[in-house]
Structures are given as structure tokens and as C-alpha cells.
């Protein structure tokens, strides 16, 4: 999606935060997103599925 930007220019680095800061932030983003997705897909989703299975089991 980055190529969609109308007025961003990677060649001109003036005013950008440092590449190191951006790399650290990218790592933070990846860690938070992956950990959250793993947690979300395990704990709440499994709970939801168990509740659903229980509901199906109760249905005559």
C-alpha cells in the first residue's frame, strides 16, 4: 500500500525519524501483533468454540 502515498519520498530523509527507531518500532509492531493474534486465536476463540460446541450438544 505504501506506493499509494501522494507526498512521501523515501529519498529525502530530512525530517524522518531515524531508520533505527523505525526498525525498533517495526519489531515492536510484529511482536505485539503476533503475540496478540496467538492469544486471541487460542484463549477467547477456543472458549467461544467450546461454548458453541456445548450449545450444539444441548440442542435436541
Amino acid at each position, binding site marked *: 500500500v505504501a506506493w499509494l502515498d501522494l507526498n512521501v519520498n523515501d529519498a529525502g530523509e530530512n525530517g524522518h525519524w531515524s531508520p533505527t527507531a523505525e526498525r525498533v518500532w517495526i519489531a515492536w509492531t510484529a511482536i*505485539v501483533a503476533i503475540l496478540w493474534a496467538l492469544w486471541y486465536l487460542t484463549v477467547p476463540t477456543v472458549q467461544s468454540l467450546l461454548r458453541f460446541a456445548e450449545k450444539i450438544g444441548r440442542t435436541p
Partner: protein
Amino acid sequence: VSDHWLTGAPIVQLLVFALTWFVGAFGVYGLVPIDRRLDRKPGALSAFIAFGASTALVVLATVAMYVNWWFGVRLAVHAALLGIYVLLGVHGLIRLRANWIQWGEVDRRTIRRRALLLACVLVPALLIMAPAATTPYIYGDDDAYHVSLLRYWFQEQQLDRVAFHSYFVFPLLSSAIAALFVPITGLQSAKLVQLAFVVTAALGIYGVVLLTTGRQSLALIAAFLYETLPVHFMWAFAAMADRATGCLMTLGVSIWLLAPLAGATVTVLASALLLAAATAVKQQGAFALVGLAPLVWIASRSRGHSAPQRLALAGLAVLVCAFVLLPWYGRAYWITGNATFPMRPRADDTLLTPAQRQLWSGSVLEPDLTRVTTLIEQLYAYSTDRFNDATNPALLILLPVIIVAALYHRDRFPRGTRELVSLVVLYLLLLALMSLFFAPGVRVNRSTVWSAGRYRTFLYPAHGSLFVFAAVCCAAVGLRTRGTRVLAAATVGILLAQTVNLTAYLRWAVPPFVGLQSSEQYLAEFHSLGEDLVTARQVLSDRDRIALDRHRTQINVPGHIVPTTRLLGEVYSTTRTLAPPATCAGPGDLKTWLVAHRLDAIVTSTEPCPAAAHWPRDAALEVTVGRELVIARLSRK
């Protein structure tokens, strides 16, 4: 009318509603002078659609409320106002077409591509949420007041005759906006309006970010993040008004970023209108509205207005707020002597019983400092006992960028950012302060208060403005191509994870218009009284005057409905609510009671009438006993 409310093909309702909302959204565009339309600025059209739809609907719904208040509630008035909305929209579209023809092919192709891309980003989540918005009502709060009061307004044809319901003067602007659409989509409009507000806010976020930063990728990501908040998925099947508050707050706060383009006067007045509207939907909107007062003064001073001009602008802003708030808080004060009735009622209040006055009076607790952490916990908590509407980690991901931008790149913030931040910060501060008092637990008078999930309901409306600010921060730090790609990937990953979970939750089931499940099958499966309600819809008709004596029956039962104190309970009843039959030992009890109150039928339950299934057949009273409901109707013969 009510027959129309309860039936109708859902897909037709959805398409008609979407078309009407979208066409009318161009109304403001057509009214703006040609040199102020910013046609060639990327994002301008999206911003016009979002701000156009919300401001026009707020104004028209408020006008409708004044008419309802003084002359009674008439379907024709709402149809006429909706007609004005559509006509203005058609006028705007004609103006847009005229401009479109004048633009060069390159400009037109660029706009078409941007629109197509935006649609590709927003439509997938919409395809999951829209079917849920076409399902019958099953949610408790919709039945308790969001939709039932809307039904009572039209049924009684007078707002204040609904005083048998304690929320009869409660701020319900989003229900009033839904009322504009009742002539075409019936009561279903209350759900569809909330869905439309989600899309409108997403469009507004896209337009504001693109206009302000010129970065389409950030605009798309911010709009996508807002649209795919778990709250929107989880509430897609309900008419809960928080999404309207969220949209109005997002637009009312974000418009400050457009001040350099729109001018101080337009910005102040539009912000006042939208934030007052948020306050007229839910009281917490006032947390942001109070922040507007200093901004009006500062904005007009910084733009070199003279003292009389500044006073005039402040006066206009006050007038705009009064115009929007009067039909709610003003009417409440006029009728009950309490602007926030039934909260904290007066000692001499006659609409509430002494027990109800006591119930509502203890709404203030001593601050509980041990609850401070709850605010943070609630942001990311998962609750098994109610909506799984925990927010996703989008704000957590963006937090480092916000901190870096605020510390080192403030000079790259666009004008208006300071105002946006001050409004959001004030909202959050007041929210945190109030939350100390509204801690989950028990009030001083021993009635239960806000559930733990209430914090999230309060925090949710700030998300839209925070996403806009985060996008501005990403632009300020100069997020590079790689960083933008990672952000987009994380956004999609978050959505995929939560979609799997939310789909597993299965609240919305199979869309009825796919043809695999009818509306009645959905109702039977997901409503706690499902099969009994389906039976009630078969046994009773729109011509019947029906007493409702069991809670959660106010939307799905046809006819002219009259609630009893047993249905409304202590919270929603008043001294004007009908008392239920004193006894229900046999058909004679119900027959006598129905005749005495000039009613045709009663929908009660097996709890007060435990032996109803074994009653002898009575020629004068047709009794149908379901799993929980007892439907007794005086014989038509």
C-alpha cells in the same frame, strides 16, 4: 405501519437504506460554494460525504424532534424530512456531475481509482456486518429502550405520552435519526443507522487523514482500523447507539484538522453541532463538548477576529449546541424538572414511585482509587460473560509512533492537531475521573451499577480521533515505505485473528437473505423467547391492543402494545405504567382485566400464570401457552 416494521425482505431494506443514506450524503456538497468544495484535493469528496451525511441527518432529526415535541409524532413529517435529505443529496450529485464533466480524464481516472481502492478496503468487513444488521431484534437494550421507545413514539403519536417508560426524555438522537428512515425501512432502520455511522466515520477518517497528510496508505489503514474494531463486529446485530456517538465524536473532533481549509467559523460551528449531537446520543459525549468552549475562543483569537466577532462566534456555537440539545435535556427539564431524568430525581418527583426515586438517587459513589487499574485492564480484557468487545492492539502498536512524534516532531503536525489532542485528552481525563465514581459494584443504595464492560463503552468513542491522530503522527515521523507495509500487514493480521474469534461467537448467524435461514428461524434460534415470539406473531395482529407483561417482548410482538410494570421492572417503569393483573389463576382473571383496560390481548408468562397450560377451554378467551409465554386473547367472536 407496524406490520411493515415487522416484515419486508431484509436485502431490499438494506439496499434501499444504503442508497438513501449515500445519496443524501451529497447534500452539503451541493450547498457549499464552488470555490470551497476543494474538488481537486484528494480526500475532499470522502470528507464531504461523511460530514455531509452526519450534519444533515443531525439537523433534520433535530427539526423532526421539535415537530414531534410540539405537534405530535407523524410518519408523514419524517417521510417529508427524509425527502428533503434525499432531494438535497440529488442536488449535490447534480453539482458533482457538472464538475465531473469539466475535470480532465486524468483527474477523473485518479478519483475513480481512489474510490475503488477505498471500496476494496472497506467492503469486506461490511459484508460480514451488513447481514447482521438485517436480522430481527434479539438484544436486551434494543428491547429495553433504543428501539422500543422509537416504536412507542410512532404508536402514541406523541413523545411525552410515552411517560409510562422512565427513559421517555432520555437523549436518544440516534433513535430520532432512525425515525427519519422508518417510513422506508421500518424499525429495522435503528440497526441500519448504526452500521451506516460506522461506515460514515471510516469515510470521514479516510478523508481527514488524506486531506491533512496526503498519505493515502495511512488514510486507508486508519479507516480500516476504525471500521474493523471488534466493537463494530460484536454490535452489528444490535441497535446500540454507541456507534453513532463514536462517529459523531470522531468527526466533531477531527474537523479541527480541516480548520485551515474550512475556516475557523465553519470548523467551530460544525464541531459544536457534531459534539452536541454526540451528547444527545449518549451523555458521555458531553466530556468532549465541554472542551470546545476554550477552543472556540482560542481559534477565533488566533485567526485575528475582533472581540465582537469572537463573541458572535461563541454565541453562534452556543445556539447550535442549544438547538441540538434542547429536544433532549431541555425537554427533560421542561417536563420533569430534571435535565437528566430519571437520573438523580427530585424529592417531589411524581413520575417515579418512592422506590424508583431511591433506586435512581444513589448514582454517585465515593471515588474508589483501587479501581484505577481497571481502566487499563478493560482495554485489553476478555470477558466471557458478555460481549467480547475488547479493543484490538492497534493503539498499542501506534503508541511508540505517537510518543516519538509528540516529543521530537511536533513542528511537523498540521494545524488543528493541538485542538484535536486537547479535545481527546479532556474526554479521556473526564472519563477516567468519572470512572472512579462509576466503578463496577454496588451503589450506596445497594442497586447494582455499571458492569465492568462499561469502561470500554466509554473509551470506544475516542478511538476514531485517536486513529486520526496516530495517522498524523505516522506522517509526522515520516514513516517509510517499509514501516507502512508492516503497519498494513499488522492491521490485516489483527483483523484476521479477531474475525476468526468473532465468527466463532456466532451472534449474527447465517444472513437471512442468503436464503438458508428465515428471519423467524433466526428469532427462534437467538432470542431467549424465540419460538414463543414467533407464535405471538402468528396469533396476534396489528389491529390488536396488547398488554405486554414479560420483558424482552417490546419489539417483536405486533399490534398496539402497552407495557406493564412487570415488563418494564423497577428501572423503566413510572407511576403511569400499567399495573399487571393482580392474579392469574384462571382465564377469568385475565378476561376481567383485559375488559377493564379495554385491551384485546395480553402477552404474559408462565411465572405469574403457572397453571395456564391446564386451564379449561374458555370460549371468550383464546389462550396459547408456549415454553415461557402465555398469550391470551379475547375471542374475536
